[in-house]
């Protein structure tokens, strides 16, 4: 396969948030690209889409979902997928991502990214559904490693083995969230570098960086910024291991002005250019 499935290197982007709409529409700030939360622009015929259309005329966009529920044992929601595909076509999004998780079962949605058991049954079930979704979307699905707070007993695989197995069986992409790797490593006591080392980096289409809340006993993926240095160091390590993908900063708690979010995102250049210099030397 082609690295990153041939998707372009969009540079360094930030997550599109409603608090920044006015600034973006009035001043068109210099941001390489935006990631939009798919569901914010679904189940609507109104203002969210009108704003997104204007932003799509000015910036490259990618779509990031939270409700695909790819690992659920409920049937795939084809109405949702039809709307997802139409939105992608409408805004010309470069790719569509969601999380390697489930969000509900028995017809109910928790709107949370719930953990899968790392079993062969779950791996085969999820990979089969990823293939179905990709066939329908006529594009690779890009799957993000979520942060997690529990591990199920009797699950023989490690999280990174499970992620690798799903994307290789289904020929899907990876959205590598290095903050989630950090948070889950803290919560489950594994080595985050071992996680990164095990991944097929040629499948990494995009990288997320973000901040988190550390409560001592555990960490929660709050997306509060700025991004802490250990997470930046994991980004640099992922790049060393071959994850040569565009980077996006997520900031969802106590969101500051766009200029502050964008400035923090630019720290990626600092960490990655140091790496490039070291590599050249």
């Amino acid at each position, binding site marked *: 396969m082609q690295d990153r499935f041939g998707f372009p290197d969009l540079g360094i982007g930030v997550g599109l948030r409603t608090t920044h709409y006015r600034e973006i529409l009035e001043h068109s700030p210099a941001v390489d690209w935006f990631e939009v939360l798919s*569901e914010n622009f679904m189940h609507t015929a109104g203002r969210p889409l009108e704003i997104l259309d204007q932003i799509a005329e000015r910036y490259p966009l990618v779509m990031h979902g939270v409700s695909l*529920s790819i690992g659920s044992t409920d049937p795939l929601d084809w109405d949702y997928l039809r709307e997802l595909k139409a939105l992608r076509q409408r805004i010309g999004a470069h790719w569509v991502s969601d999380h390697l998780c489930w969000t509900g079962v028995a*017809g109910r*949605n928790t709107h949370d990214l719930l953990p899968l058991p790392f079993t062969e*049954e779950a791996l085969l079930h999820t990979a089969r559904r990823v293939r179905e979704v990709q066939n329908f979307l006529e594009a690779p699905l890009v799957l993000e490693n979520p942060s997690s707070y*529990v591990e199920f007993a009797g699950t023989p695989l490690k999280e990174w083995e499970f992620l690798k197995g799903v994307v290789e069986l289904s020929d899907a992409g990876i959205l590598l969230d290095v903050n989630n790797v950090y948070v889950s490593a803290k919560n489950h006591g594994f080595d985050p570098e071992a996680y990164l080392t095990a991944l097929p980096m040629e499948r990494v289409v995009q990288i997320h960086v973000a901040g988190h809340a550390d409560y001592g006993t555990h960490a929660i993926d709050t997306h509060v910024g700025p991004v802490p240095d250990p997470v930046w160091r994991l980004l640099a390590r992922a790049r060393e291991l071959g994850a040569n993908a565009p980077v996006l900063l997520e900031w969802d708690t106590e969101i500051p002005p766009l200029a502050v979010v964008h400035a923090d995102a630019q720290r990626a250049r600092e960490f990655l250019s140091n790496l490039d210099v070291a590599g050249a030397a």
Partner: protein
Amino acid sequence: MTSASAPGLRELQRWFASVTTHPEGVLEGHLNPGRSRKLERLVTPGPRLSAIDRVQIYADGYFARLIECLTDDYPALSYALGEDTFSSLARAYIESHPSRSRSLNAYGAQMAVFCRARPEAWASFAADLARLEWALVEVVHETVDESLAADALLTIPAAGWQTARLLPSRSLRLLGFDYPVNDFFQAFREERAPEMPARAPTATAVYRQGLALWRMGLDLRAALLLKDLVSGVPLSAAVATLESRSKAAGTGEDLARLLPQWLGAWVQSGFFRGVELV
């Protein structure tokens, strides 16, 4: 690879969802020895947290996320009831209205009905305020039609007035209330710390022009006229009804002055997308 005692994926998901969305929390399960043993059998403890504490993170997140969603949709209601009462109301709503959609855009749609059925003294006021706030949410997500031209009513031929119907914009909501909730909402927006008002009938139109949301307080006679027009009553019949209502109430003297003002303001505000001459 699954061990013999481990449940299958479907059973595990159903169990996890039931534990993390239980109204009384994971603790309820913990107090029940059978459920507690099951949890500790299915979930491993972490380096620093017990299995129950780990699952509780998801349970806390479930209610917090949906309460946040309802607070976003109902900021004035949240203010009016106070944080604790609103939070209790929201939890009760979540328990009786589990989300069945991939989107949260319409999650709070039933809040006004839910408030109306509450036994508390604030129920009717809360229901009115919730209806106003939900109309704002609906209008955000509604298509804005191209508006009727400002002079369109003048171009209707005389013979057409008997049958001319005004076609309402899809992004218009006309609401009648038992309480002055639009004034309350405005005072809340301006941080004037409003208190729950006395009962008094009012009417408000909620609409959108471009990206901007608007609320227009309406004279009650105007609201009845607008209600007729929006429901498809021909223009001349609606005006005749208004005149007879006003005459019966002894309030007809100023209609000749007010009627063009009302219609002009509504057309200018984009309440209508066209005229249909039947």
